[in-house]
């Protein structure tokens, strides 16, 4: 298919449809309401389901019900809305249903602001809700990558019967960039007869299916949690994705950055190169699983003096970097968290201060 110029939010909606997800439930919130405004029309065209729920709490359970019934389904929201889905996402994870959640992050905490932010890193990667569960979290750095990640999110969610989250900052949703969509539509969802409550007749079986997260017997609940843990360990083995920039140079500083922020860093790295300062970057594409070994390896590299976590948050990803680097190199933080994306100039300035 030819390149089209598309707004991130609309591209995300289209990507879901291309991935065979014809079911969308959501509640409006800036800066991602365009997803719904795009899909309300497109779903009608493709005969899909569009519903504006009464709240994010309700939407998270509409997603749960639909996913548990075997449908491929997703929603989009932004920071405060995602917080309201905390309990629901915990339930979906506990009940092991596949679903995709897109968080186009805005400034927080509380009402905060509506401009780009990356302040929901901790929430997405660690404390999304109560109990022991993880989301597979992918962070796009361009509209095209958002499309690719959304399309990959559904098969991954189904592979692990676990929710997947796309974590994008506001710019990813609001920017227009050229995107290409694969022509082939993946409209056939994977077979979910083994567990989905899609009706015994549908399965032609007289064994009923049950979707639940309650395990009153402590040993059963412990086994259940071990089974979930096994899935997350498998993700750590199989799903780590990352990108590097200028890491073949003899960099003195290693930047770890993701999303739009990483693109600013790329420009900063180019500028510093011109100034004769070599800086490398590891860009996690999956935030969970986090590219621990890759960051460690890049940090250990001969000549690398310091590591910098550059985030549009007040020091969240830095904790995963610290765990990864294990004290081999000092790890510094730079960030802003109000909506102004730090400029390449500001990044350059910061890098010089830590050398």
């Amino acid at each position: 298919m030819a390149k089209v110029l598309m707004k991130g939010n609309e591209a995300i909606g289209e990507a879901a449809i291309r991935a065979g997800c014809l079911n969308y439930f959501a509640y409006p919130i800036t800066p991602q309401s365009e997803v719904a405004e795009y899909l309300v029309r497109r779903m009608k065209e493709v005969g899909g389901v569009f519903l504006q729920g009464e709240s994010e709490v309700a939407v998270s359970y509409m997603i749960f019900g639909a996913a548990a019934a075997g449908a491929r389904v997703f929603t989009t929201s932004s920071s405060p809305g995602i917080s309201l889905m905390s309990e629901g996402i915990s339930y979906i994870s506990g009940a092991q249903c596949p679903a995709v959640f897109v968080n186009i992050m805005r400034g927080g905490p509380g009402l905060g602001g509506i401009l780009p932010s990356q302040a929901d890193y901790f929430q997405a990667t660690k404390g999304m809700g109560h109990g022991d569960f993880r989301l597979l979290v992918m962070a796009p750095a361009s509209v095209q990558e958002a499309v690719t990640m959304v399309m990959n999110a559904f098969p991954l969610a189904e592979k692990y019967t676990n929710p997947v989250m796309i974590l994008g900052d506001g710019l990813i949703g609001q920017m227009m960039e050229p995107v290409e969509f694969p022509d082939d539509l993946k409209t056939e969802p994977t077979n979910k007869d083994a567990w989905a409550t899609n009706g015994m007749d549908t399965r032609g079986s007289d064994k009923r299916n049950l979707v639940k997260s309650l395990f009153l017997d402590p040993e059963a609940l412990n086994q259940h949690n071990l089974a979930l843990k096994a899935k997350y360990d498998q993700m750590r083995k199989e799903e780590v994705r990352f990108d590097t920039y200028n890491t073949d140079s003899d960099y003195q500083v290693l930047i770890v950055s993701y999303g739009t922020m990483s693109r600013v860093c790329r420009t900063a790295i180019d500028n510093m190169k011109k100034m004769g300062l070599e800086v490398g970057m590891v860009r996690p594409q999956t935030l969970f699983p986090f590219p621990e070994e890759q960051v460690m390896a890049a940090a250990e590299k001969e000549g690398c003096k310091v590591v910098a976590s550059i985030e549009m948050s007040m020091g969240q990803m830095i904790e995963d970097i610290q765990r990864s680097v294990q004290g081999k190199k000092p790890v510094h933080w730079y960030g802003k968290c109000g909506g102004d994306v730090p400029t390449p100039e500001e990044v350059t300035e910061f890098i010089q201060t830590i050398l």
Partner: protein
Amino acid sequence: MGKTFTKPEALSDQITHYCPGCTHGVIHRLVAEVIDELGIRGRTVGIAPVGCAVLAYNYFTFDFQEAAHGRAPAMATGIKRVRPDLMVFTYQGDGDLASIGMGEIIHAANRGEKFTTIFVNNAIYGMTGGQMAPTTMPDQRTSTSPFGRDVDDVGMPIKVAELLSALQTPAYIARQAVLKPKHIVRAKKVIKQAFKYQMEGRCFSLVELVSTCPTNWGLTPVEAIKWAEDTMLPYYPLGVYKTPESS
């Protein structure tokens, strides 16, 4: 003149965890009988609440989902929107539906979601040990209203059937009881009617059932029935409150 009586197919053999004399068991049986008679077991999905009926899925022989507290109507919406051909019902207590789940039930009813809700009004939170529910009667003592429900402080009991009937979207809304054999016969009729409307894709349907919680009321099952008749029935009148025709 005599009658035979055996367990419906939609009901499993499992002995319930319900307390002796708890009418949840009666309601389970009625739902199962209706599903058998309509022959829809193979395409029915039930949604268990969080409440004493959280384990309801153990007592039925068709697909089931377990909701979070109060969110069953949102889950049912999710299922019906992606699979309108499935027959979906939520089974909810009064804390679940009328307290934490008020937003979800009102919006599902107002959107006219084509599922059925079995609403068990036992005027208390059973599962968690007898706290006050929105449906708790004036002056009724519960573990969080030990001096009796003070309506000046926390308001009057919510009449769910009446409240939902105040919405503009066509629906089938009825209230019955499961206190006496005659109620039980009528209750089954309205439950069946509710499922029929769903089968026809007509409208949202809800049946409120005045029920008992002997354990947390601190009464014997027989006393509990009497208390419900004397105290609850006058405040919660039985009848059909709304039909898609009437609206």
